[in-house]
């Protein structure tokens, strides 16, 4: 199918939509669709796009102004705003879409003999005082465009050992996807797995240019490539020389003196314009000088670090980081500002008590583990708790009145399955009690209730960060923190030591005295509404370390927690 046919389909459909397509045009469109799968696929793509735009239009999602980075604070809850991802503009008349959705809801509700809470049905029980339902509704896609680039990757970073980054490049982390383009390290070792299946260990200083899942250009540096049969054809370019792998393991070192290719296993093809291709087999090495001459060279596998050796070096770094965290954590335990602290470093896997790590110890603050299983933590030497099933949680009881609060935890999120995904939720959500959770839109969400149940008063202020979650973060340890600063009347969210957002709390919604009482980590125990979508808030992921301070920590202090705790 040629692009011309695509163009023709596009144009025929536009006329059809406008009502100006004549009989011959309809026939022509059908004729194209009968020809092949590709034209049908293209047709459906265009139609789905039209349907999607119409749905978004009906849902009021037609504001594309870039509003990244601004904390969203949604105040008033209107019952029709029940979908967390869809905002219905205030006073919107019932549109075509709305009408049939409502019709569907009514039909089903009627037949079922009871009112069923469909998306557009009246969600909040009026007699109930849930303060935090659906208005959470923020246009979903506010992810930073540069962040999005990671999902257009051609390779993944799977290991970093002693890496230092060049001053002009932002540092990257294990698990990051690499988009096409330059990748540079100043020192250390980076293990990169190309999406085609080839693994490359790069020794710094090195500079490469990723072209595609099976091709990269090497400007300088030493690397070892391991290419399983499935990734055969993986190629590296050095100037106009192309090294094509035929299923093997080889080393490549590029310096000012030329390119040195050594084959340790299997064979490699060297291609160069105006030159016959050369085959290099195991145990052979060639140096190509800058003037294009080839010289045979001895094979020196030891000068190209292999995966096993890198693994043991990575283990060394891993142990070192664990030790650093441990000594920092020993210090932290004595911090008088701590309300409670769980380091998750118990070794007795059978114990259903989550011992708090404060010094001096206070067993009153121990948590009760319900359901959640122990699973590996940030380091092999310590565990975490995995929250999976709707019942999984840790129950805690914390007495006392406080002012400012700081929440900090390390989590590994598998996915955000629930509308609200709990980090730490007080049971009743009464006056002065905080709720700390993540919305399914990937936004960190913190609120403190400003009034007693049953009393009139302002609704809570909802501090929402911009969406920070994206599926590529799944399975990675993240540090989340939120600071509730009473004197400054502000709420600040942090991800990995960096500020996500900061919001000022309006005076009438500001609560100066906070309290916890009974609460759950990773779940919500006493929902204020029965609707399961609202009430079920179990986290799908693991938690390793949780700290709550009776103070507003500074940005530097949050950074310090992150740097001492990162795996």
């Amino acid at each position, binding site marked *: 199918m040629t692009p011309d046919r695509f*163009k023709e389909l*596009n*144009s025929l*459909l*536009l006329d*059809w939509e*406008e*009502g100006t397509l004549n009989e011959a045009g*309809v026939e022509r*469109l*059908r004729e194209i*669709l009968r020809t092949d*799968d590709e034209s*049908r*696929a293209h*047709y*459906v*793509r*265009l*139609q*789905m*796009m*039209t*349907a*999607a*735009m*119409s*749905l*978004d*239009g009906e849902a009021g*999602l*037609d504001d*594309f102004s*870039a509003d990244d980075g601004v904390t969203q604070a949604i105040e008033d809850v209107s019952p029709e705003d029940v979908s967390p991802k869809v905002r219905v503009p205030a006073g919107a008349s019932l549109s*075509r*879409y709305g*009408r*049939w*959705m409502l*019709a*569907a809801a009514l*039909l*089903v509700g009627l*037949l*079922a003999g009871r009112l*069923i809470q*469909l998306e557009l049905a009246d969600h909040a029980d009026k007699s109930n005082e849930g303060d935090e339902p659906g208005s959470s509704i923020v246009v*979903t*896609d506010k*992810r930073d*465009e540069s962040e*999005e680039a*990671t*999902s*257009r*990757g051609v390779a*993944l970073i799977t290991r970093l050992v002693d890496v230092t980054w060049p001053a002009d490049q932002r540092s990257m982390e294990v698990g990051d*996807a690499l988009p096409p383009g330059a990748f540079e390290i100043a020192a250390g070792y980076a293990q990169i797995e190309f*999406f085609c299946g080839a693994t490359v260990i790069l020794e710094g200083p090195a500079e490469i240019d990723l072209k595609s899942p099976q091709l990269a250009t090497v400007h300088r540096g030493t690397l070892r490539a391991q290419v399983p049969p499935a990734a055969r054809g993986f190629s590296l370019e050095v100037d106009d020389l192309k090294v094509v792998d035929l299923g093997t393991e080889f080393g490549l070192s590029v310096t000012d003196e030329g390119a040195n290719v050594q084959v340790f296993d299997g064979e490699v093809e060297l291609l160069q314009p105006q030159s016959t291709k050369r085959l290099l087999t195991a145990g052979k090495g060639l140096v190509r000088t800058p003037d294009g001459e080839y010289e045979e060279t001895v094979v020196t596998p030891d000068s190209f670090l292999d995966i096993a050796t890198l693994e043991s070096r990575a283990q060394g770094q891993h142990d070192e980081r664990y030790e650093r965290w441990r000594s920092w954590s020993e210090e932290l335990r004595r911090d008088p500002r701590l309300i409670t602290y769980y380091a998750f470093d118990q070794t007795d896997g059978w114990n259903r008590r989550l011992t708090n790590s404060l010094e001096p110890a206070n067993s009153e603050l121990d948590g009760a583990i319900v359901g959640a299983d122990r699973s590996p933590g940030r380091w092999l030497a310590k565990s975490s708790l995995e929250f999976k099933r709707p019942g999984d949680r840790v129950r805690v009881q914390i007495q006392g009145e406080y002012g400012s609060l700081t929440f900090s935890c390390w989590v590994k999120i598998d996915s955000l399955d629930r509308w609200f995904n709990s980090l730490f939720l007080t049971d009743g959500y009464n006056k002065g009690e905080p709720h700390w959770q993540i919305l399914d839109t990937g936004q960190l969400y913190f609120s403190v209730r400003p009034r007693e149940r049953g009393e009139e008063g302002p609704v809570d202020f909802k501090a929402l960060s911009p969406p920070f979650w994206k*599926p590529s973060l799944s399975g990675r340890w993240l540090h989340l923190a939120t600071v509730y600063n009473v004197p400054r009347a502000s709420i600040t969210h942090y991800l990995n030591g960096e500020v996500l957002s900061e919001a000022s709390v309006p005076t009438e919604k500001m609560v100066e005295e906070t309290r916890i009482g009974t609460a759950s980590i990773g779940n919500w125990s006493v929902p204020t509404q029965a609707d399961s979508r609202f009430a079920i808030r179990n986290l799908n992921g693991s938690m390793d370390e949780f700290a709550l301070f009776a103070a507003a920590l500074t940005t530097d202090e949050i950074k310090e927690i992150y740097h001492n705790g990162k795996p």
Partner: protein
Amino acid sequence: MTGSDKTEHFVQQLATHQNRLYGYVFSLLGDHTRTADVLQETNMVLWRKIDEFQTDKAFLPWAFAIARFQVLAHLRDKKRDRLLLDAELAETVSVETERQAQHLDELREALRPCMRTLSAGNRDLVERRYFRAMSISEIAQEVDRTVSAVKVALLRSRRHLSECIQRRMAAEGDA
């Protein structure tokens, strides 16, 4: 599972997949009003057949099958009306439609950043035409351009958007 659990589960599934069903039916009919009608009929049939609904089986393939049947019935019924596809062709296209309709949410996710890559002028045209359902002649009048100029700009924008969405969705699948 008790009857009321089953009902709840069914309703939840029906609500969850409304948009995908909408995308599915629309792709085969190419008309929003007809789509709304057929979708409502589909919901009704699904409801009547709740006994056939097995909670341990995937809801969506079952719902798509019933939606397809409703679309085909509609096309045969309205044979004398102006229709985009005939029943036979709709049947052929339905396989691909079902495949793509499953990913409607990802498409909507991709759509937003792609919209931002359009020039402000073109984005405005697309918004008017597709998000706010204005006709091309209305738009032409409002923005003071000729119908054919608006058409050309819309065609180009649609192509751009479609490619952008396809790239993004493919990339999401990769990483």
